[in-house]
């Protein structure tokens, strides 16, 4: 076992077929001197571990068994994090990273074929903590990213060829370990015939022990073509007394053996004694613990025995399984009792057992196993058992499957009306599921009706039921533009989620709540929601998921109030918490706020690139897309003079002035109006559209946030159309509305035209302190933009577009010629050129080209 001494490898894979002594090899190494300083965690896998939750739970338990307190499963974060998401794995990895050296053995890894488990394992392997040596024992190469480890010399592989006995090893085994007297030729023959396969050598040795004519056996064996295991097992079996032979065959149906169980199956009373005898003679049984209470058969041998049993006594199979099932049931081991009931095809019995154990199975997250068994039962059997039907329906629903659920529920209800409370709960579950489905495909009316039904059905139910249904209803109402009702629904939802202890879900819901409040123009209330969510998240160590989102939210509020330093600080806090501290939406939300800050600093190209990134990372998480990132980007184009790009966006969205207005598309239409404004030919259309939008928002009466934005638009449109007086009226109203909450950026972001209008407004009504303050802020903001270039995300490389411009600068095309060549406006070109100069620290075309050549950007 020299091959293990190197300490640089951190992963060992032992891959070989059954019977090659893999487990023995590892066990021997772990017991050897090489291994003194390491704790050992051993996880023997079986088919029931083929589920992400179960797998990791047992893996962590195995580690805890070796090193108590090495990992501390945080109850709250355990529930808040998605089961074995990368975030949860990060927690485990970090805890192991700072722990003592340890070996973790995963035995029989080939039984795992669940893709989620493999994905998690891949991640684990890619981020393996330094003190950990991972050993994987398997019959099939694991589908994990081992190539990199191999290249880095951190992977050790032990394969069948390494485990086969050499002739010398075979000789030692046969003569010393098994005490046989053999000639060199005989040893060579056996070694060749078995190919050094340990299982076969073992069987051969067993046959030879006490054989009356070993020489003849060996020569016949050598000359025979039969599969070695077939041949040898038959030899061994034939040489056993009949009672032993029967014992072996009949107990072969058992995965695990113990004296009393064997007696129940064989109908005899010498089970324990027989097992001890087999153990002593090294005949196929493996003890499962030190007390030698439980055994199992060697894999290969068990296969062979079962094959024989099926061939010789098929009618006995059912009876044997029933006896086993009965014994397991009497001893309170219901899972195995169920398995054997199915083995006997005794479906009635299996159904009875399932009814008795379903609660326990669901509590232990054995839903996959439960579902598998339930699906094996004949449908008529389930419809006759209402309680089982309900269990089945509930399990399907938690697995996200709605097929059969309706049928199961109506069968259950008609079979036994007293189950109506459970039926109600499940109907509520279906309504919620349906509402979610409709939301995902964007069918708002269907979502509303399902969500309302869910709320109704949940009203007498648990906190989580009420919270989830109120939340979904809130989302649908929001999508419809019924903001007051949506806010009410979400307030209820958040209360129930908090009461149910689902804190991370409450934090996620806070995002929706705050978004709705912002749409209503209630910045202070939104900030309070973010702060509360943040407080809750920070109670845990590490902070709950969603903490980053709260910081980003607060950043957005600070930005709106023109408190740019605070906004930046909140973004930094969000980033320092790490990506796994954010809920799915945070990836795009953070970038949108960052983009706004970049725009405020005048870093327009970076801002737009950031928005493109944000769009790529967008996930709805079932929130209505009321502020599409593409529209935000279009506004950024307009603000930076890239009018063609903005018009392209509008065309791509098929927006026309004849469109009916709806809350869902309000932001897009307002953006479209701004696009119309950028072209003198369509200013009149912009004015009309703006008026329609303003009226629509006013009618809704609870869209304060939108109204300010739309009044600003209206002011700008009217001004562009030459209607200065009415423009100032609109602006006046906007200023008053925005004053209480301190929404300042909505004005400042409009740039020079707004500056001019504000100045005009202060002249018209000098007593309006709000307008004066805004004007001051707007003026200061413009000065700041020129000076400050400290971006959140360092920008040191040219974007693709800038590179194009740079290459054209190196030619002798003039500015206008370049803009024609690229078919963009001259303004656009000028902006790009400005950025290129800034990045290259140049102030002229020649200087820029020279610098770029020095840096190797141009050749």
């Amino acid at each position, binding site marked *: 076992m020299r091959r293990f001494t190197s300490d640089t490898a951190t992963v060992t894979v032992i891959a070989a077929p059954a019977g090659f002594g893999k487990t023995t090899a590892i066990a021997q190494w772990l017991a050897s001197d090489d291994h003194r300083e390491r704790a050992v965690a051993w996880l023997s896998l079986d088919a029931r571990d083929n589920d992400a939750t179960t797998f990791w739970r047992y893996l962590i338990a195995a580690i805890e068994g070796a090193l108590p307190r090495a990992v501390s499963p945080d109850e709250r974060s355990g529930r808040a994090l998605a089961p074995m998401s990368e975030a949860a794995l990060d927690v485990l990895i970090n805890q192991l990273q700072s722990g003592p050296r340890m070996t973790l053995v995963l035995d029989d890894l080939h039984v795992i074929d669940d893709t989620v488990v493999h994905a998690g394992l891949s991640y684990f392997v890619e981020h393996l903590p330094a003190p950990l040596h991972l050993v994987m024992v398997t019959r099939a190469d694991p589908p994990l990213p081992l190539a990199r480890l191999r290249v880095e010399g951190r992977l050790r592989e032990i394969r069948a060829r390494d485990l086969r006995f050499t002739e010398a090893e075979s000789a030692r085994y046969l003569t010393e370990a098994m005490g046989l007297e053999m000639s060199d030729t005989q040893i060579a023959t056996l070694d060749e015939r078995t190919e050094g396969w340990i299982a076969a050598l073992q069987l051969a040795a067993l046959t030879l022990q006490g054989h009356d004519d070993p020489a003849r056996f060996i020569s016949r064996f050598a000359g025979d073509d*039969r599969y070695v295991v077939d041949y040898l097992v038959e030899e061994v079996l034939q040489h056993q007394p009949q009672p032993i032979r029967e014992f072996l065959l009949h107990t072969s149906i058992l995965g695990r053996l113990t004296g009393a169980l064997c007696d129940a199956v064989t109908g005899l009373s010498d089970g324990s004694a027989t097992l001890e005898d087999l153990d002593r003679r090294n005949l196929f049984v493996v003890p499962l613990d030190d007390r030698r209470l439980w055994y199992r058969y060697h894999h290969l041998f068990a296969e062979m025995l079962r094959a024989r049993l*099926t061939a010789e006594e098929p009618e006995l199979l059912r009876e044997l399984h029933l006896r086993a099932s009965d014994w397991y049931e009497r001893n309170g081991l219901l899972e195995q009792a169920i398995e054997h009931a199915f083995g006997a095809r005794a479906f009635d019995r299996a159904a009875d057992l399932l009814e008795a154990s379903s609660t326990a199975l669901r509590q232990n997250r054995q839903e996959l196993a439960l579902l598998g068994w339930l699906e094996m039962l004949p449908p008529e059997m389930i419809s006759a058992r209402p309680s089982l039907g309900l269990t089945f329906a509930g399990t399907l629903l938690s697995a996200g499957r709605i097929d059969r659920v309706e049928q199961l529920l109506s069968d259950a209800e008609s079979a036994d009306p007293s189950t109506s409370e459970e039926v109600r709960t499940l109907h509520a579950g279906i309504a919620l599921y349906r509402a979610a489905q409709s939301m995902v495909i964007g069918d708002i009316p269907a979502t509303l009706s399902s969500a309302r039904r869910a709320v109704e059905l949940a009203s007498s139910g648990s906190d989580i039921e009420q919270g989830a249904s109120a939340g979904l209803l809130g989302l649908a109402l929001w999508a419809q533009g019924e903001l007051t009702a949506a806010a009410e629904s979400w307030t209820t939802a958040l209360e129930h989620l908090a009461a149910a202890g689902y804190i991370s879900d409450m934090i996620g819901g806070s995002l929706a709540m705050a978004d709705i409040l912002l749409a209503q123009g209630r910045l202070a209330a939104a900030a309070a929601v973010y702060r509360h969510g943040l407080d809750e998240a920070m109670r845990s160590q590490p902070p709950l998921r969603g903490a980053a989102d709260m910081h980003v939210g607060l950043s957005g509020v600070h930005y709106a109030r023109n408190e740019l330093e605070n906004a930046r600080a909140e973004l930094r806090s969000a980033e320092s918490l790490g990506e796994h501290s954010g809920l799915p939406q945070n990836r795009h939300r953070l970038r949108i706020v960052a983009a706004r800050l970049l725009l405020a600093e005048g870093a327009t190209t970076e801002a737009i690139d950031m928005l493109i990134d944000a769009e790529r990372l967008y996930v709805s998480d079932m929130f209505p897309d009321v502020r599409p990132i593409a529209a935000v980007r279009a506004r950024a184009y307009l603000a930076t003079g890239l009018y063609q790009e903005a018009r392209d966006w509008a065309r791509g969205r098929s927006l026309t002035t004849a469109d009916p207005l709806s809350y869902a598309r309000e932001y897009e239409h307002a953006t479209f109006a701004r696009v119309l404004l950028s072209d003198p030919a369509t200013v009149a259309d912009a004015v009309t559209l703006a008026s329609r939008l303003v009226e629509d928002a006013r009618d809704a009466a609870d869209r304060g946030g939108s109204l300010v934005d739309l009044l600003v638009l209206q002011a700008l449109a009217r001004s562009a159309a030459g209607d200065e007086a009415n423009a100032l009226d609109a602006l006046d109203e906007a200023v008053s509305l925005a004053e209480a909450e301190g929404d300042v950026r909505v004005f400042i972001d409009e740039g020079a035209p707004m500056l001019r209008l504000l100045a005009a407004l202060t002249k018209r009504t000098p007593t309006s302190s709000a307008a004066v303050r805004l004007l001051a802020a707007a003026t200061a903001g413009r000065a700041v933009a020129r000076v400050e270039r400290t971006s959140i995300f360092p920008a040191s490389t040219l974007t693709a577009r800038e590179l194009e411009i740079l290459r054209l600068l190196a030619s002798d095309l003039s500015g206008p010629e370049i803009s024609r060549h690229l078919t963009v406006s001259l303004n656009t070109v000028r902006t790009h050129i400005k950025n290129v100069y800034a990045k290259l620290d140049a102030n002229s075309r020649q200087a820029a080209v020279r610098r770029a050549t020095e840096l190797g950007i141009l050749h």
Partner: protein
Amino acid sequence: MPGVNHSADSPATYEFRVSGHLDPLWAAHFEGLMLACDVDGTTSLRCEIVDQAALHGVLHRLRDAGLSIVAITQVDR
């Protein structure tokens, strides 16, 4: 297109070839299996396989029986 055009999910007959001669009792263990020992020391196992999932199931069981697979072929119906 000439030849047999199967969809991946329709039943087909597969032949697995393993090292060593297998005892006929294996036929009962793998339902519906036809077993034939060949002079080259291998055994061919033919069975009707319903779909790809069933195919992988058989492969697993061959593996668990410690058999060495030397060839897998889909045979004309």
